[in-house]
Protein backbone atom coordinates (compact mmCIF):
# COMPACT_ATOMS: atom_id res chain seq x y z
CA UNK A 1 0.00 0.00 0.00
CA UNK A 2 1.35 3.39 -0.98
CA UNK A 3 -0.45 6.33 0.54
CA UNK A 4 0.28 9.87 1.57
CA UNK A 5 -0.57 9.22 5.21
CA UNK A 6 1.18 9.26 8.55
CA UNK A 7 -0.27 6.11 10.00
CA UNK A 8 -3.12 3.85 8.96
CA UNK A 9 -4.67 4.35 12.38
CA UNK A 10 -4.79 8.15 12.30
CA UNK A 11 -6.00 8.83 8.78
CA UNK A 12 -9.30 10.41 9.77
CA UNK A 13 -8.11 12.77 12.54
CA UNK A 14 -5.03 13.72 10.50
CA UNK A 15 -7.21 14.67 7.55
CA UNK A 16 -9.65 16.54 9.78
CA UNK A 17 -6.78 18.57 11.17
CA UNK A 18 -5.97 19.53 7.60
CA UNK A 19 -9.58 20.49 6.94
CA UNK A 20 -9.53 22.63 10.08
CA UNK A 21 -6.33 24.36 9.04
CA UNK A 22 -7.47 24.95 5.48
CA UNK A 23 -10.95 26.31 6.03
CA UNK A 24 -11.49 29.17 8.45
CA UNK A 25 -15.20 29.03 7.62
CA UNK A 26 -15.40 25.67 9.36
CA UNK A 27 -15.01 24.61 12.96
CA UNK A 28 -13.69 21.07 13.26
CA UNK A 29 -14.06 18.97 16.39
CA UNK A 30 -11.18 16.62 15.64
CA UNK A 31 -11.69 14.43 18.72
CA UNK A 32 -15.33 13.78 17.95
CA UNK A 33 -14.77 13.88 14.19
CA UNK A 34 -17.39 16.49 13.44
CA UNK A 35 -17.15 19.36 10.95
CA UNK A 36 -19.33 22.39 11.74
CA UNK A 37 -19.87 25.78 10.18
CA UNK A 38 -17.73 28.20 12.17
CA UNK A 39 -20.69 30.54 12.38
CA UNK A 40 -22.77 28.19 14.54
CA UNK A 41 -26.54 27.64 14.32
CA UNK A 42 -28.86 30.36 13.01
CA UNK A 43 -32.03 30.86 15.01
CA UNK A 44 -35.04 29.70 13.10
CA UNK A 45 -33.05 27.88 10.41
CA UNK A 46 -33.44 24.11 10.12
CA UNK A 47 -30.10 22.46 10.79
CA UNK A 48 -28.76 19.91 8.32
CA UNK A 49 -26.62 17.09 9.62
CA UNK A 50 -25.11 14.36 7.49
CA UNK A 51 -22.22 12.02 7.87
CA UNK A 52 -20.89 8.65 6.95
CA UNK A 53 -17.72 6.71 6.68
CA UNK A 54 -14.60 8.58 5.63
CA UNK A 55 -12.91 7.95 2.30
CA UNK A 56 -15.57 9.72 0.21
CA UNK A 57 -14.09 13.21 0.38
CA UNK A 58 -15.17 15.91 -0.26
CA UNK A 59 -18.41 14.22 0.92
CA UNK A 60 -19.54 15.15 3.63
CA UNK A 61 -17.22 17.60 5.39
CA UNK A 62 -16.50 19.46 2.16
CA UNK A 63 -20.20 20.29 1.88
CA UNK A 64 -20.51 22.06 5.22
CA UNK A 65 -21.15 25.77 4.87
CA UNK A 66 -23.66 28.37 3.78
CA UNK A 67 -26.40 26.89 1.65
CA UNK A 68 -25.60 23.29 2.41
CA UNK A 69 -24.83 21.30 5.58
CA UNK A 70 -24.52 22.63 9.12
CA UNK A 71 -22.49 19.68 10.34
CA UNK A 72 -20.96 16.46 9.05
CA UNK A 73 -19.95 13.47 11.17
CA UNK A 74 -16.96 11.53 9.90
CA UNK A 75 -16.69 7.84 10.65
CA UNK A 76 -13.63 5.70 10.23
CA UNK A 77 -12.80 4.87 6.62
CA UNK A 78 -15.89 3.23 5.09
CA UNK A 79 -17.49 2.83 8.52
CA UNK A 80 -20.51 4.87 9.50
CA UNK A 81 -20.03 7.25 12.40
CA UNK A 82 -21.48 6.46 15.82
CA UNK A 83 -24.62 7.84 17.47
CA UNK A 84 -22.66 9.98 19.94
CA UNK A 85 -21.26 12.07 17.10
CA UNK A 86 -24.66 12.51 15.51
CA UNK A 87 -26.29 13.46 18.78
CA UNK A 88 -23.55 15.99 19.46
CA UNK A 89 -23.83 17.46 15.98
CA UNK A 90 -27.61 17.53 16.14
CA UNK A 91 -27.84 19.47 19.36
CA UNK A 92 -25.05 21.83 18.29
CA UNK A 93 -26.72 22.88 15.02
CA UNK A 94 -30.30 23.11 16.27
CA UNK A 95 -31.43 26.71 15.89
CA UNK A 96 -34.83 25.86 17.34
CA UNK A 97 -36.36 24.86 14.02
CA UNK A 98 -35.31 21.24 14.21
CA UNK A 99 -32.68 19.21 12.45
CA UNK A 100 -32.69 17.14 9.28
CA UNK A 101 -30.58 14.00 9.18
CA UNK A 102 -29.46 13.12 5.68
CA UNK A 103 -28.60 9.43 5.73
CA UNK A 104 -27.17 7.32 2.96
CA UNK A 105 -28.92 3.97 2.85
CA UNK A 106 -26.44 1.51 4.32
CA UNK A 107 -27.30 -0.72 7.24
CA UNK A 108 -24.59 0.87 9.36
CA UNK A 109 -25.54 4.45 8.61
CA UNK A 110 -29.22 3.73 9.03
CA UNK A 111 -28.87 1.96 12.38
CA UNK A 112 -26.51 4.52 13.87
CA UNK A 113 -28.52 7.51 12.68
CA UNK A 114 -31.72 5.84 13.89
CA UNK A 115 -30.31 5.46 17.40
CA UNK A 116 -29.07 9.03 17.31
CA UNK A 117 -32.38 10.40 16.12
CA UNK A 118 -34.24 8.60 18.91
CA UNK A 119 -31.86 9.88 21.56
CA UNK A 120 -31.83 13.41 20.14
CA UNK A 121 -35.61 13.43 20.16
CA UNK A 122 -35.52 12.34 23.78
CA UNK A 123 -33.29 15.34 24.41
CA UNK A 124 -35.99 17.53 22.92
CA UNK A 125 -34.64 18.23 19.43
CA UNK A 126 -37.07 17.78 16.57
CA UNK A 127 -35.40 15.46 14.10
CA UNK A 128 -36.49 14.31 10.66
CA UNK A 129 -34.48 11.74 8.74
CA UNK A 130 -34.19 11.44 5.00
CA UNK A 131 -32.79 8.34 3.41
CA UNK A 132 -30.82 8.64 0.18
CA UNK A 133 -31.02 5.53 -1.99
CA UNK A 134 -30.25 6.42 -5.57
CA UNK A 135 -28.05 3.60 -6.79
CA UNK A 136 -29.90 1.66 -9.47
CA UNK A 137 -27.25 -1.06 -9.51
CA UNK A 138 -28.94 -2.54 -6.45
CA UNK A 139 -32.36 -3.97 -7.03
CA UNK A 140 -34.57 -2.70 -4.28
CA UNK A 141 -36.47 -5.71 -3.12
CA UNK A 142 -37.08 -7.97 -0.20
CA UNK A 143 -33.80 -9.60 -1.04
CA UNK A 144 -31.40 -6.72 -0.41
CA UNK A 145 -30.73 -4.02 2.14
CA UNK A 146 -32.22 -1.69 -0.46
CA UNK A 147 -30.53 0.71 -2.81
CA UNK A 148 -27.35 2.38 -1.70
CA UNK A 149 -27.03 6.10 -1.25
CA UNK A 150 -24.33 7.51 -3.54
CA UNK A 151 -24.03 10.59 -5.75
CA UNK A 152 -27.53 11.92 -5.13
CA UNK A 153 -26.46 12.67 -1.57
CA UNK A 154 -24.77 15.78 -2.94
CA UNK A 155 -27.96 16.81 -4.73
CA UNK A 156 -30.03 16.32 -1.57
CA UNK A 157 -27.57 18.21 0.61
CA UNK A 158 -27.31 21.13 -1.80
CA UNK A 159 -30.99 21.52 -2.55
CA UNK A 160 -32.31 20.91 0.96
CA UNK A 161 -29.55 23.18 2.26
CA UNK A 162 -30.66 25.98 -0.02
CA UNK A 163 -34.26 25.63 1.11
CA UNK A 164 -33.25 25.57 4.78
CA UNK A 165 -31.36 28.80 4.21
CA UNK A 166 -34.67 30.50 3.28
CA UNK A 167 -36.07 29.71 6.72
CA UNK A 168 -38.42 26.99 5.48
CA UNK A 169 -39.80 24.69 8.20
CA UNK A 170 -38.41 21.25 8.92
CA UNK A 171 -41.26 19.39 7.24
CA UNK A 172 -40.77 21.39 4.05
CA UNK A 173 -37.01 20.85 4.02
CA UNK A 174 -37.54 17.15 4.58
CA UNK A 175 -40.13 17.05 1.83
CA UNK A 176 -37.84 18.63 -0.74
CA UNK A 177 -34.96 16.39 0.33
CA UNK A 178 -37.14 13.31 -0.23
CA UNK A 179 -38.33 14.73 -3.51
CA UNK A 180 -34.75 15.18 -4.74
CA UNK A 181 -33.95 11.63 -3.73
CA UNK A 182 -37.04 10.30 -5.46
CA UNK A 183 -36.09 12.10 -8.67
CA UNK A 184 -32.44 10.99 -8.61
CA UNK A 185 -30.60 7.91 -9.82
CA UNK A 186 -26.93 6.89 -9.97
CA UNK A 187 -24.79 4.17 -11.50
CA UNK A 188 -21.06 3.59 -11.01
CA UNK A 189 -18.30 1.75 -12.85
CA UNK A 190 -14.86 0.94 -11.47
CA UNK A 191 -11.64 0.56 -13.45
CA UNK A 192 -9.77 -0.39 -10.31
CA UNK A 193 -10.45 -1.31 -6.73
CA UNK A 194 -9.39 0.84 -3.82
CA UNK A 195 -7.19 0.19 -0.82
CA UNK A 196 -8.35 1.04 2.68
CA UNK A 197 -5.48 2.12 4.92
CA UNK A 198 -6.41 -0.52 7.50
CA UNK A 199 -6.62 -3.42 5.07
CA UNK A 200 -3.54 -2.32 3.16
CA UNK A 201 -4.40 -4.06 -0.06
CA UNK A 202 -7.03 -3.62 -2.76
CA UNK A 203 -10.50 -4.78 -1.74
CA UNK A 204 -10.80 -6.71 -4.97
CA UNK A 205 -8.59 -7.49 -7.92
CA UNK A 206 -9.38 -6.46 -11.47
CA UNK A 207 -7.30 -7.46 -14.44
CA UNK A 208 -6.12 -4.87 -16.94
CA UNK A 209 -8.97 -5.67 -19.28
CA UNK A 210 -11.87 -5.75 -16.83
CA UNK A 211 -14.23 -3.28 -15.18
CA UNK A 212 -16.74 -3.69 -12.37
CA UNK A 213 -20.22 -2.54 -13.23
CA UNK A 214 -22.62 -1.22 -10.63
CA UNK A 215 -20.16 -0.47 -7.86
CA UNK A 216 -20.93 1.49 -4.75
CA UNK A 217 -18.59 3.86 -2.94
CA UNK A 218 -16.93 1.49 -0.50
CA UNK A 219 -14.69 -0.48 -2.79
CA UNK A 220 -17.22 -3.26 -2.70
CA UNK A 221 -17.31 -5.33 -5.87
CA UNK A 222 -20.10 -4.45 -8.27
CA UNK A 223 -22.89 -6.67 -9.49
CA UNK A 224 -21.00 -7.90 -12.53
CA UNK A 225 -17.60 -7.85 -14.04
CA UNK A 226 -17.24 -6.96 -17.67
CA UNK A 227 -14.70 -6.17 -20.36
CA UNK A 228 -13.01 -2.79 -20.43
CA UNK A 229 -14.30 -0.82 -23.38
CA UNK A 230 -14.23 2.73 -24.71
CA UNK A 231 -15.49 5.44 -22.37
CA UNK A 232 -18.43 6.09 -24.65
CA UNK A 233 -19.65 2.50 -24.29
CA UNK A 234 -19.16 2.45 -20.53
CA UNK A 235 -21.17 5.66 -20.30
CA UNK A 236 -23.91 4.17 -22.45
CA UNK A 237 -24.09 1.18 -20.11
CA UNK A 238 -24.48 3.48 -17.14
CA UNK A 239 -27.00 5.74 -18.86
CA UNK A 240 -29.08 2.79 -20.02
CA UNK A 241 -29.19 1.49 -16.46
CA UNK A 242 -30.39 4.89 -15.26
CA UNK A 243 -32.93 5.22 -18.02
CA UNK A 244 -34.37 1.79 -17.38
CA UNK A 245 -35.20 2.93 -13.88
CA UNK A 246 -36.15 6.55 -14.44
CA UNK A 247 -36.70 7.64 -18.02
CA UNK A 248 -34.16 10.29 -18.97
CA UNK A 249 -36.14 13.18 -20.33
CA UNK A 250 -36.55 16.89 -19.91
CA UNK A 251 -34.17 19.03 -17.90
CA UNK A 252 -31.71 17.10 -15.79
CA UNK A 253 -29.14 17.86 -13.19
CA UNK A 254 -26.22 15.61 -14.14
CA UNK A 255 -23.07 14.75 -12.28
CA UNK A 256 -20.15 12.85 -13.73
CA UNK A 257 -18.34 11.96 -10.56
CA UNK A 258 -14.84 10.58 -10.26
CA UNK A 259 -14.13 7.83 -7.75
CA UNK A 260 -10.95 9.51 -6.50
CA UNK A 261 -8.17 8.15 -8.68
CA UNK A 262 -9.47 9.11 -12.11
CA UNK A 263 -8.06 12.35 -13.49
CA UNK A 264 -10.30 15.18 -14.61
CA UNK A 265 -9.37 14.84 -18.28
CA UNK A 266 -11.00 11.40 -18.28
CA UNK A 267 -14.10 12.64 -16.49
CA UNK A 268 -14.57 15.25 -19.20
CA UNK A 269 -14.27 12.53 -21.82
CA UNK A 270 -17.03 10.68 -19.99
CA UNK A 271 -19.10 13.84 -19.73
CA UNK A 272 -18.91 14.36 -23.49
CA UNK A 273 -20.34 10.88 -23.90
CA UNK A 274 -23.06 11.61 -21.33
CA UNK A 275 -24.07 14.75 -23.21
CA UNK A 276 -24.21 12.79 -26.46
CA UNK A 277 -26.28 10.07 -24.85
CA UNK A 278 -28.76 12.56 -23.43
CA UNK A 279 -29.06 14.35 -26.77
CA UNK A 280 -29.88 11.00 -28.33
CA UNK A 281 -32.76 10.61 -25.88
CA UNK A 282 -33.98 14.15 -26.30
CA UNK A 283 -33.03 15.02 -22.73
CA UNK A 284 -30.80 17.87 -21.62
CA UNK A 285 -28.26 18.47 -18.87
CA UNK A 286 -29.65 21.80 -17.70
CA UNK A 287 -27.12 21.83 -14.85
CA UNK A 288 -24.05 19.70 -14.35
CA UNK A 289 -21.02 18.91 -12.27
CA UNK A 290 -17.88 17.15 -13.47
CA UNK A 291 -15.31 16.23 -10.84
CA UNK A 292 -14.44 14.17 -7.78
CA UNK A 293 -17.31 14.72 -5.35
CA UNK A 294 -18.36 11.38 -3.88
CA UNK A 295 -15.28 9.25 -3.96
CA UNK A 296 -14.05 5.86 -2.88
CA UNK A 297 -10.49 6.52 -1.72
CA UNK A 298 -8.10 5.94 -4.63
CA UNK A 299 -10.50 3.97 -6.80
CA UNK A 300 -10.34 4.61 -10.52
CA UNK A 301 -13.72 4.90 -12.11
CA UNK A 302 -16.75 7.12 -12.32
CA UNK A 303 -20.41 7.34 -11.58
CA UNK A 304 -23.20 9.20 -13.28
CA UNK A 305 -25.97 10.72 -11.20
CA UNK A 306 -29.04 12.40 -12.59
CA UNK A 307 -31.90 14.30 -11.01
CA UNK A 308 -35.00 15.31 -12.92
CA UNK A 309 -35.31 19.02 -12.30
CA UNK A 310 -38.37 21.20 -12.00
CA UNK A 311 -38.39 24.97 -11.53
CA UNK A 312 -38.29 24.77 -7.75
CA UNK A 313 -35.34 22.39 -7.68
CA UNK A 314 -33.47 24.32 -10.36
CA UNK A 315 -33.86 27.52 -8.38
CA UNK A 316 -32.62 25.86 -5.21
CA UNK A 317 -29.69 24.31 -7.06
CA UNK A 318 -28.71 27.73 -8.41
CA UNK A 319 -28.97 29.40 -5.00
CA UNK A 320 -25.69 30.59 -3.47
CA UNK A 321 -23.52 28.02 -1.76
CA UNK A 322 -20.22 28.46 0.04
CA UNK A 323 -18.53 25.26 1.10
CA UNK A 324 -15.00 23.95 0.54
CA UNK A 325 -16.06 21.77 -2.36
CA UNK A 326 -19.07 23.52 -3.87
CA UNK A 327 -19.22 27.25 -4.19
CA UNK A 328 -21.05 29.77 -6.27
CA UNK A 329 -23.05 32.95 -5.91
CA UNK A 330 -20.90 34.25 -3.04
Amino acid sequence: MKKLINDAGTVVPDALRGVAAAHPGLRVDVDNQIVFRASGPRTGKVGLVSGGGSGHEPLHGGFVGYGMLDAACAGEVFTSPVPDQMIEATSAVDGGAGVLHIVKNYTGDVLNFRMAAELSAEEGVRVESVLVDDDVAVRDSLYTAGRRGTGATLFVEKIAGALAETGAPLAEVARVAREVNARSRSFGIALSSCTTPAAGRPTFELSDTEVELGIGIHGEPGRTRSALRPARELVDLAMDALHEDLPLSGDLLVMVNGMGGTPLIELYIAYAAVADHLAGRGARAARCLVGNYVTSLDMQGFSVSVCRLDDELTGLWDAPVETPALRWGR
Partner: protein
Amino acid sequence: MDVAFFASWIEEAARTVSSDRERLTALDAAIGDADHGTNLDRGFTAVAHALGTADPATPGALLTLVGTTLIRKVGGASGPLYGTFFRETGKALGDDAEVSVARLHTALQAGLAGVRALGSAAEGDKTMVDALAPAVRALEEAVRDGGDPADPTDAAEAIGAAAAAARTGAESTIPLQARKGRASYLGPRSVGHEDPGAASTALILAALHAVATR
Protein backbone atom coordinates in the same frame (compact mmCIF):
# COMPACT_ATOMS: atom_id res chain seq x y z
CA MET B 1 -20.57 -17.62 36.54
CA ASP B 2 -19.71 -14.34 38.24
CA VAL B 3 -18.63 -10.96 37.04
CA ALA B 4 -14.98 -12.08 36.84
CA PHE B 5 -16.05 -14.89 34.52
CA PHE B 6 -17.79 -12.47 32.20
CA ALA B 7 -14.85 -10.09 32.33
CA SER B 8 -12.64 -12.98 31.24
CA TRP B 9 -15.03 -13.80 28.42
CA ILE B 10 -14.83 -10.27 27.04
CA GLU B 11 -11.07 -10.22 27.48
CA GLU B 12 -10.73 -13.50 25.60
CA ALA B 13 -13.13 -12.27 22.91
CA ALA B 14 -11.03 -9.13 22.52
CA ARG B 15 -7.89 -11.22 22.21
CA THR B 16 -9.29 -13.55 19.60
CA VAL B 17 -10.91 -10.75 17.59
CA SER B 18 -7.58 -8.99 17.56
CA SER B 19 -5.62 -12.04 16.46
CA ASP B 20 -8.24 -12.88 13.80
CA ARG B 21 -8.63 -9.29 12.66
CA GLU B 22 -7.03 -9.80 9.26
CA ARG B 23 -9.12 -12.88 8.58
CA LEU B 24 -12.36 -11.08 9.44
CA THR B 25 -11.36 -8.12 7.28
CA ALA B 26 -10.48 -10.43 4.43
CA LEU B 27 -13.91 -12.07 4.67
CA ASP B 28 -15.44 -8.59 4.55
CA ALA B 29 -13.27 -7.65 1.58
CA ALA B 30 -14.80 -10.49 -0.40
CA ILE B 31 -18.43 -9.46 0.06
CA GLY B 32 -18.33 -6.16 1.94
CA ASP B 33 -16.01 -3.24 2.49
CA ALA B 34 -12.98 -4.76 4.17
CA ASP B 35 -13.44 -3.30 7.63
CA HIS B 36 -15.15 -5.84 9.86
CA GLY B 37 -11.99 -7.00 11.63
CA THR B 38 -10.78 -3.43 12.09
CA ASN B 39 -14.18 -2.36 13.36
CA LEU B 40 -14.47 -5.08 16.00
CA ASP B 41 -10.87 -4.78 17.06
CA ARG B 42 -11.34 -1.05 17.58
CA GLY B 43 -14.55 -1.76 19.49
CA PHE B 44 -13.10 -4.39 21.81
CA THR B 45 -10.05 -2.26 22.48
CA ALA B 46 -12.39 0.51 23.61
CA VAL B 47 -14.33 -2.05 25.66
CA ALA B 48 -11.16 -3.17 27.46
CA HIS B 49 -10.44 0.45 28.26
CA ALA B 50 -13.98 1.10 29.49
CA LEU B 51 -13.98 -2.01 31.69
CA GLY B 52 -10.60 -1.05 33.09
CA THR B 53 -11.89 2.28 34.33
CA ALA B 54 -15.51 1.43 35.26
CA ASP B 55 -15.07 -1.93 37.00
CA PRO B 56 -18.76 -2.97 36.87
CA ALA B 57 -20.08 -4.94 39.85
CA THR B 58 -22.38 -7.47 38.21
CA PRO B 59 -22.40 -9.58 35.04
CA GLY B 60 -25.41 -7.58 33.86
CA ALA B 61 -23.73 -4.21 34.38
CA LEU B 62 -20.60 -5.47 32.70
CA LEU B 63 -22.30 -6.73 29.53
CA THR B 64 -24.46 -3.60 29.36
CA LEU B 65 -21.31 -1.50 29.46
CA VAL B 66 -19.73 -3.67 26.77
CA GLY B 67 -22.78 -3.08 24.58
CA THR B 68 -22.90 0.66 25.17
CA THR B 69 -19.20 0.96 24.41
CA LEU B 70 -19.55 -0.97 21.16
CA ILE B 71 -22.43 1.27 20.10
CA ARG B 72 -20.39 4.35 20.94
CA LYS B 73 -17.14 3.28 19.33
CA VAL B 74 -17.62 0.88 16.44
CA GLY B 75 -20.00 2.42 13.95
CA GLY B 76 -20.92 0.53 10.81
CA ALA B 77 -23.55 -2.17 10.88
CA SER B 78 -21.83 -4.36 13.41
CA GLY B 79 -21.47 -1.63 16.04
CA PRO B 80 -25.15 -1.09 16.80
CA LEU B 81 -25.93 -4.77 16.26
CA TYR B 82 -23.28 -6.24 18.56
CA GLY B 83 -23.84 -3.30 20.90
CA THR B 84 -27.50 -4.10 21.14
CA PHE B 85 -26.76 -7.78 21.57
CA PHE B 86 -24.55 -7.20 24.62
CA ARG B 87 -26.78 -4.48 26.04
CA GLU B 88 -29.93 -6.57 25.86
CA THR B 89 -28.10 -9.61 27.20
CA GLY B 90 -26.75 -7.52 30.06
CA LYS B 91 -30.06 -5.91 30.86
CA ALA B 92 -31.74 -9.32 30.95
CA LEU B 93 -29.28 -10.46 33.62
CA GLY B 94 -30.51 -7.74 35.98
CA ASP B 95 -28.49 -7.34 39.16
CA ASP B 96 -27.64 -11.02 39.63
CA ALA B 97 -24.16 -11.60 40.99
CA GLU B 98 -24.05 -15.22 39.88
CA VAL B 99 -25.47 -16.47 36.59
CA SER B 100 -26.53 -20.03 35.79
CA VAL B 101 -26.41 -21.51 32.31
CA ALA B 102 -30.18 -21.40 32.16
CA ARG B 103 -30.16 -17.74 33.07
CA LEU B 104 -27.42 -17.12 30.54
CA HIS B 105 -29.58 -18.76 27.92
CA THR B 106 -32.56 -16.52 28.50
CA ALA B 107 -30.31 -13.48 28.54
CA LEU B 108 -28.64 -14.44 25.26
CA GLN B 109 -32.09 -15.02 23.87
CA ALA B 110 -32.93 -11.42 24.77
CA GLY B 111 -29.71 -10.31 23.10
CA LEU B 112 -30.61 -12.20 19.94
CA ALA B 113 -34.10 -10.70 19.99
CA GLY B 114 -32.51 -7.24 20.18
CA VAL B 115 -30.35 -7.95 17.12
CA ARG B 116 -33.36 -9.26 15.24
CA ALA B 117 -35.48 -6.27 16.13
CA LEU B 118 -32.81 -3.78 15.10
CA GLY B 119 -31.55 -5.41 11.92
CA SER B 120 -34.68 -7.36 10.95
CA ALA B 121 -32.55 -10.19 9.62
CA ALA B 122 -34.01 -13.69 9.60
CA GLU B 123 -31.99 -16.87 9.66
CA GLY B 124 -30.75 -17.59 6.16
CA ASP B 125 -30.17 -13.93 5.32
CA LYS B 126 -26.41 -14.49 5.67
CA THR B 127 -25.71 -12.37 8.74
CA MET B 128 -24.48 -12.81 12.29
CA VAL B 129 -27.97 -14.09 13.09
CA ASP B 130 -27.07 -17.29 11.25
CA ALA B 131 -24.46 -18.00 13.91
CA LEU B 132 -26.20 -16.47 16.89
CA ALA B 133 -29.62 -18.08 16.56
CA PRO B 134 -28.39 -21.70 16.36
CA ALA B 135 -26.02 -21.00 19.25
CA VAL B 136 -28.84 -19.81 21.46
CA ARG B 137 -30.93 -22.78 20.36
CA ALA B 138 -28.12 -25.22 21.16
CA LEU B 139 -27.72 -23.71 24.58
CA GLU B 140 -31.43 -24.02 25.17
CA GLU B 141 -31.36 -27.70 24.25
CA ALA B 142 -28.34 -28.38 26.43
CA VAL B 143 -30.05 -26.68 29.34
CA ARG B 144 -33.30 -28.55 28.75
CA ASP B 145 -31.55 -31.92 28.29
CA GLY B 146 -30.20 -31.67 31.72
CA GLY B 147 -26.93 -31.70 33.52
CA ASP B 148 -26.54 -30.01 36.83
CA PRO B 149 -27.09 -26.32 36.29
CA ALA B 150 -24.65 -25.57 39.08
CA ASP B 151 -21.90 -27.97 37.88
CA PRO B 152 -19.23 -26.01 35.99
CA THR B 153 -18.38 -29.01 33.79
CA ASP B 154 -21.96 -29.32 32.66
CA ALA B 155 -22.11 -25.56 32.07
CA ALA B 156 -18.95 -25.72 29.98
CA GLU B 157 -20.42 -28.54 27.96
CA ALA B 158 -23.60 -26.63 27.30
CA ILE B 159 -21.64 -23.56 26.26
CA GLY B 160 -19.45 -25.79 24.10
CA ALA B 161 -22.56 -26.93 22.25
CA ALA B 162 -23.53 -23.32 21.69
CA ALA B 163 -20.06 -22.41 20.41
CA ALA B 164 -20.06 -25.38 18.07
CA ALA B 165 -23.48 -24.43 16.76
CA ALA B 166 -22.24 -20.90 16.12
CA ARG B 167 -19.28 -22.22 14.15
CA THR B 168 -21.51 -24.52 12.10
CA GLY B 169 -23.91 -21.65 11.64
CA ALA B 170 -21.15 -19.40 10.39
CA GLU B 171 -20.05 -22.04 7.89
CA SER B 172 -23.64 -22.51 6.80
CA THR B 173 -23.61 -18.96 5.47
CA ILE B 174 -21.11 -19.87 2.75
CA PRO B 175 -23.61 -21.15 0.19
CA LEU B 176 -26.20 -18.50 1.04
CA GLN B 177 -27.04 -15.40 -0.99
CA ALA B 178 -27.05 -12.37 1.29
CA ARG B 179 -30.32 -10.55 1.85
CA LYS B 180 -29.19 -8.07 4.46
CA GLY B 181 -26.24 -5.72 4.90
CA ARG B 182 -23.63 -4.74 2.39
CA ALA B 183 -23.19 -8.23 0.98
CA SER B 184 -26.75 -8.14 -0.36
CA TYR B 185 -25.63 -5.61 -2.99
CA LEU B 186 -23.66 -8.37 -4.63
CA GLY B 187 -26.70 -10.48 -5.32
CA PRO B 188 -25.66 -13.97 -6.44
CA ARG B 189 -21.99 -12.98 -6.21
CA SER B 190 -22.30 -13.11 -2.42
CA VAL B 191 -22.65 -16.90 -2.64
CA GLY B 192 -19.54 -18.91 -1.76
CA HIS B 193 -18.20 -16.67 0.99
CA GLU B 194 -18.56 -16.90 4.76
CA ASP B 195 -20.34 -13.94 6.31
CA PRO B 196 -17.84 -11.91 8.36
CA GLY B 197 -20.35 -11.07 11.10
CA ALA B 198 -21.31 -14.73 11.48
CA ALA B 199 -17.62 -15.57 11.64
CA SER B 200 -17.02 -13.02 14.40
CA THR B 201 -20.04 -14.31 16.33
CA ALA B 202 -18.54 -17.79 16.21
CA LEU B 203 -15.28 -16.34 17.56
CA ILE B 204 -17.03 -14.56 20.40
CA LEU B 205 -18.87 -17.72 21.44
CA ALA B 206 -15.70 -19.76 21.14
CA ALA B 207 -14.15 -17.29 23.56
CA LEU B 208 -17.04 -17.93 25.97
CA HIS B 209 -16.41 -21.63 25.72
CA ALA B 210 -12.66 -21.23 26.22
CA VAL B 211 -13.27 -19.30 29.41
CA ALA B 212 -15.89 -21.80 30.64
CA THR B 213 -13.41 -24.68 30.29
CA ARG B 214 -10.59 -22.96 32.18
